[in-house]
């Protein structure tokens, strides 16, 4: 008995209850909550866009479509490398899996760097919430940029979290805590990364292509 008591409290993974479907179910529920979190912002966007359609249209023209599209390609590619990393570990190719995962991380960082330059340019032009320049414009444009910073900011935060999670996964892979017969953690990290990707796919047309 003492052995199982110990395993229960200290929790070495070997003796722990392992449930692949359960772990995935938990992750999917978490993804629902993330979608609803962004859902509140999408509702706000929908409402204000219907109220200020013309001003949204005009403000969207000021965003850098090229940077937006580059970032979309970067993020979509990173989702591909993420999937490849999972496939690789299932085929017992640990080294390859780590390389693909690291590539995903790099692409995530590239996305953030692009975002940084994009935001910096906007702020440089005086386009940020509460700025005099923006307050001189009509309400619809102010709201557009408020939502732009709010939504891309929250998305950027998710990218940052995703990259951090992948760093942890990389360590786990290295230490053989993620193996070809126990890869649920990596798969769940992948699900999270795809979520980040999917949200961006909605942000791109709503902000960059709305012009």
């Amino acid at each position: 008995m003492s052995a199982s008591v110990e395993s229960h409290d200290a929790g070495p993974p070997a003796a722990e209850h392992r449930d692949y479907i359960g772990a995935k179910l938990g992750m999917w529920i978490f993804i629902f909550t993330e979608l609803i979190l962004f859902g509140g912002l999408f509702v706000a966007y929908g409402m204000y866009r219907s109220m200020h359609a013309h001003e949204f249209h005009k403000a969207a023209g000021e965003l850098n479509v090229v940077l937006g599209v580059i970032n979309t390609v970067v993020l979509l590619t990173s989702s591909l490398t993420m999937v490849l990393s999972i496939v690789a570990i299932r085929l017992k190719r640990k080294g390859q899996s780590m390389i693909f995962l690291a590539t995903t991380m790099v692409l995530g960082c590239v996305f953030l760097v692009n975002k940084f330059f994009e935001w910096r340019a906007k702020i440089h032009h005086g386009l940020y919430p509460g700025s005099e320049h923006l307050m001189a414009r009509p309400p619809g444009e102010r709201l557009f940029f408020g939502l732009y910073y709010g939504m891309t900011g929250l998305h950027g935060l998710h990218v940052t979290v995703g990259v951090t999670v992948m760093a942890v996964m990389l360590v786990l892979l290295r230490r053989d805590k993620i193996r070809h017969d126990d890869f649920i953690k990596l798969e769940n990290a992948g699900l999270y990364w795809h979520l980040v990707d999917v949200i961006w796919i909605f942000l791109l047309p709503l902000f960059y292509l709305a012009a």
Partner: protein
Amino acid sequence: MSTAAASIATPTHGEPSFYAGSSRRGMLSWLLTTDHKRIGLMYLAAMLTFFLVGMTLGVFMRLEHLTMGPTIMKPTTYNALFTLHGVIMIFLFVIPGLPAVFGNFCLPIMIGAKDVAFPRLNLLSWYLFMTGATIAITSLFTGGGPPDTGWSFYVPYSVTTGTNVTMAVLGAFVIGFSSILTGLNFITTIHRMRAKGMNWMRMPLFPWALYATAWVQVLATPILGITLLLVILERVFHLGIFNPAIGGDPILYQHLFWTYSHPAVYIMIIPAMGAISEIIPTFAHRTVFGYKAIVMSSMAIAAVGSLVWAHHMFTSGMSETAIIIFSLLTFLVAIPSAIKVFNWVATLYKGSVELKAPMLFALGFIFLFSIGGLTGLFQGALAINMHIHDTYFIVGHFHYVMFGGTGFAFFAALHYWYPKMFGRMYNERTAIVAWVHIFVGFNMLYFTMLVLGMQGMPRRYYDHLPQFHGGHIHATIGSWIMVAGLLMMFGNLVRGLFRKVEIPANPWGGVTLEWTVPSPPPVENFEILPVITEPPYTFNPVSKEPAP
């Protein structure tokens, strides 16, 4: 008996209880535990502390109304007090209360599992809860002083006030995250870890209630998350989404806030109903009436209850069509709640009712919740809503639901599962005397509020007009009786911990799985995982001691 493998007749005395069976010693055995029972007790300790703080604030508010004009405080202090009372009671006690304490402690045992699906995530939830609570409490002493917006943080005032709203909102945000993770954990646990043979229709009603609640937690809480986040962004970066000065719309805030906060009412009440559905059959010594109806009504409340939020906003400015639809939906959600009340009462019919302390609290729940629910319908009716909006009627109503409902159910559950949790027993007679005080004081306090509200006493005022004076004195005296009862109850429960008595596995004659394991349960809950062969609440008079 609902189990075949594990039964009361085969005690498992060989195993140490979960208090003894830990590889760590002292505080660390608690702070680093992943045992759902220990986590449940840690929540209990934290929440009862918060409850006592919230109760004290409430007593001060009542004292302020003992005389007209300033009695013991200034208006600004009163504003801070009702905000804190609301934030502490709602976010730190009523919303997380039953799922976090009794859900954690009992859910795995009641479905025949050794723990929840994600034990470490469970511990993380507790730490998030404590972090959020700490942030919220720190907000009182730092920044521009304690928040004075009311617990609902309505914009634009919450964006413009100089008090420490940002931090209080951040605290609520973190607590919300803890709530989501608990809900996620429970859903997965119930889907994946039920004992062999326990199909959905053999699951006891408390786990069923937790299941319905968990879905509301998971689906509604993120809305609060994003809303509170936007308030913070609004205050720090002037984003403008809710700020009419920039172009935003404060009504949007109210919609988003209540899209969470009305379902939150069902996060509070559904697990309470679940606990009552356990206690009533145990003390009526007969099977619950209408098991399927209770199950379905839990799910129906969760579903319909998510669609009624705008009834908090009838006077805020909405299209008449929207108002009528939300009024209709509000009336609809009363139906499943009423179904439950009828089922509990029908369970008592021809049962051998035993009026022990948990049962008295449960019966108190049915009475008070019925008043709370029916006064809720008053507000769902459009014409009356205009008259009683923002009056004491509202305050009385939601105290009947949250305190008379969830609070009484919490205390009922506490008395019911106390012997299981601690392996000790409180003094039954003191518990009943305390219950009488709480019940009488409660009605003196809050029923008076209903009357005052009908007469036009507005809520959140630190002073009152002469015509309300008699009512206010009556309510304040009621609050003293109630608090005396509450203190008696807590004193009795604490004293019970030091009374050395041998508690059998099943002191009440309950038939759900938690009564088949020793009190307190061993670390792994079950030596042999049970196999379920019958529906729950199958009382077998032959194998039980004769009913009194």
